[in-house]
């Protein structure tokens, strides 16, 4: 019986010739990640258990990104705990305000993770690095502490679902729509305990930023990880970033999958998830017109340069509708600077957007865009659970950056295709006519 790509990475890191779905193994870790919310809890259990050294200070990364720049005294205390731990154990990869970005955009960008790696992170969206052909999965704080102490952890080898991609992406359709469509199809526990292995000729049609978005939301289908094959685009991305040798794993031809899901990229439409589950998907044309008060463009899901370009292309020469707050959050300092150099920042400011320093902030209702009762946002983030972005009676609609930007301009959930071309061709959107 052959192995899936995920199983091969796990077997290698466990020092085993082969593994099967369901096996409990102990595997060596290439990287352990934590943030300002999860690291302090990990520090507590690490200290309480009596550990006095970390396995390798170079293989631990701490990113202060959730409530930073610190929103209140409690958040500042959490960051202080994390900084103190990093200092105590000589952890050089501490990313503090000014260097920090949203962790899952930052780590690939900084070359801290690459193909073939086994990574655990005390943040559920750690699955993002599957875009690079790594096995990476979200864990809790005790697992982070265990990883820091021992350099290894226990895993149950997952079975896998194969997601076969064909075709190419139509205009205004991105990785976000691919993954929302998938979650809508299989459900929020459709891949529970399993890997999502993306394959097929359609993979080549997805740029790296799209792949990061898709792998990022694997957890929203309950998956342990999402993973892409390594191709020329992957190798080009890690070249000059990733200092360690690249290890390319491929699924065996006779690898076993519990099911295959086929997605024809060419047939996808801009897709949104209505409150309060990511699986509650509709195509935007089915539900356009819902009034909104806020738009958030950013997060570990959609805060990369391609996302900002897609949003800016819509916002260029247009203005955010009255009564809507549009918050743009580049995911890292490098993305921020590139957006500035490309003129995207000017576009955002002229359109009436608020542009923030990198932070997870509003995605989890932390800060920088928390909503009141009765408000609704279109956000490029990853979760739309009850109370996710603020008040328990506020609502989040998940969407891609083009849909979010079009909605900001329209003042309601809107289809970017209807804003297409020159402003004068914008149909009902011109002359301030309100299509909502």
């Amino acid at each position, binding site marked *: 019986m052959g192995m899936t790509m995920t199983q091969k990475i796990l077997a290698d890191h466990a020092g085993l010739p082969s593994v099967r779905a369901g096996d*409990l193994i102990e595997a060596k870790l290439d990287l352990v990640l934590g943030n300002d*919310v*999860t690291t*302090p*809890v990990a520090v*507590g*259990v*690490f200290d*309480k*258990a*009596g*550990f006095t050294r970390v396995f390798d200070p170079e293989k631990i990364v701490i990113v202060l990104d*959730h*409530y930073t720049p610190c*929103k*209140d005294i*409690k*958040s500042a*205390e*959490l960051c202080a705990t994390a900084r103190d731990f990093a200092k105590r154990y000589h952890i050089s990869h501490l990313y503090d305000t000014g260097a920090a970005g949203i962790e899952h955009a930052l780590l690939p960008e900084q070359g801290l993770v690459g193909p073939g790696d086994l990574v655990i*992170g*005390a*943040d*559920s969206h*750690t699955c993002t690095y599957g875009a690079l052909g790594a096995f990476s999965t*979200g*864990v*809790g*704080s*005790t*697992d982070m*502490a*265990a990883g820091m*102490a*021992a350099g290894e952890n*226990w895993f149950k080898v997952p079975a896998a679902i194969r997601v076969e991609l064909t075709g190419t992406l139509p205009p205004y359709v991105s990785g976000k729509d691919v993954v929302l469509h998938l979650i809508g199809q299989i459900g*929020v*526990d459709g891949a*529970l*305990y399993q890997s999502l292995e993306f394959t097929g000729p359609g993979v080549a049609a997805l740029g790296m930023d799209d792949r990061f978005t898709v792998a990022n939301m694997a*957890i929203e289908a*309950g998956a*342990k990880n999402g993973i892409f094959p390594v191709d020329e685009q992957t190798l080009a991305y890690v070249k000059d970033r990733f200092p360690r040798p690249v290890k390319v794993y491929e699924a065996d031809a006779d690898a076993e999958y519990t099911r295959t899901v086929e997605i024809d990229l060419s047939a996808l439409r801009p897709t949104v998830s209505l409150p309060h*589950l990511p699986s509650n998907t509709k195509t935007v044309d089915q539900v356009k017109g819902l009034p909104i008060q806020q738009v958030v463009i950013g997060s570990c899901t959609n805060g990369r340069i391609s996302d900002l370009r897609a949003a800016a292309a819509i916002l260029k020469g247009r203005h955010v509708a009255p009564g809507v707050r549009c918050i743009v959050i580049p995911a890292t300092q490098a993305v921020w600077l590139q957006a500035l150099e490309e003129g995207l920042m000017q576009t955002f400011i002229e359109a009436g957007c608020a542009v923030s320093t990198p932070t997870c902030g509003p995605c*989890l*209702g*932390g800060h920088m865009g*928390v909503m009141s009762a009765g408000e609704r946002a279109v956000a490029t983030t990853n*979760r739309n*659970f*009850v*109370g*996710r972005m603020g008040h*328990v009676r506020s609502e989040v609609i998940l969407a891609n950056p083009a849909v979010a930007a079009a909605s900001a301009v329209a003042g309601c959930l809107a289809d970017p295709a209807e804003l297409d071309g020159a402003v004068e061709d914008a149909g009902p959107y011109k002359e301030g006519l309100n299509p909502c």
Partner: protein
Amino acid sequence: MLNGTVFKFGDNVDTDVIIPARYLNAPSPEELAQHCMEDIDSSFVRRVQPGDIMVGGWNFGCGSSREHAPIAIQASGVSCVIAASFARIFYRNAINIGFPILESPEASERIAAGDRVRVDLNTGLITDETSGETFQAAAPPAFIGKIIESGGLLPYLKARQDAK
């Protein structure tokens, strides 16, 4: 042997409703417990008694990796969670902190809110004393049993490291 009154919730109970992110900057278990489940049941914290049992549906604990979620439930006084299935990070987190969870689709479906339920963690036997029904939850793999016996993952690893 655990024994308590059941608080029942539906499918896909996510970690944002178990403990909203607005409280994550207060990581003491006692503070977290004060806000446990408040966005879907504002009276839960007031009504829950030590030893009570939480019953959920499919995919309990989905969403973020916050270990604050099982910590908050544990600190609220709940003695164990029974669900049809658990999201995997929540499942790991509960094991790693030594908080008992049991997977049983039948128990999840049949047990009603307010029932008195008895749980034998050694055998996985769940008894609904109100209805008289019994359910058998799967026993955890031996390796996981060792972690729970040690009082959690870190004590388990520390003991192993010290033995080397």
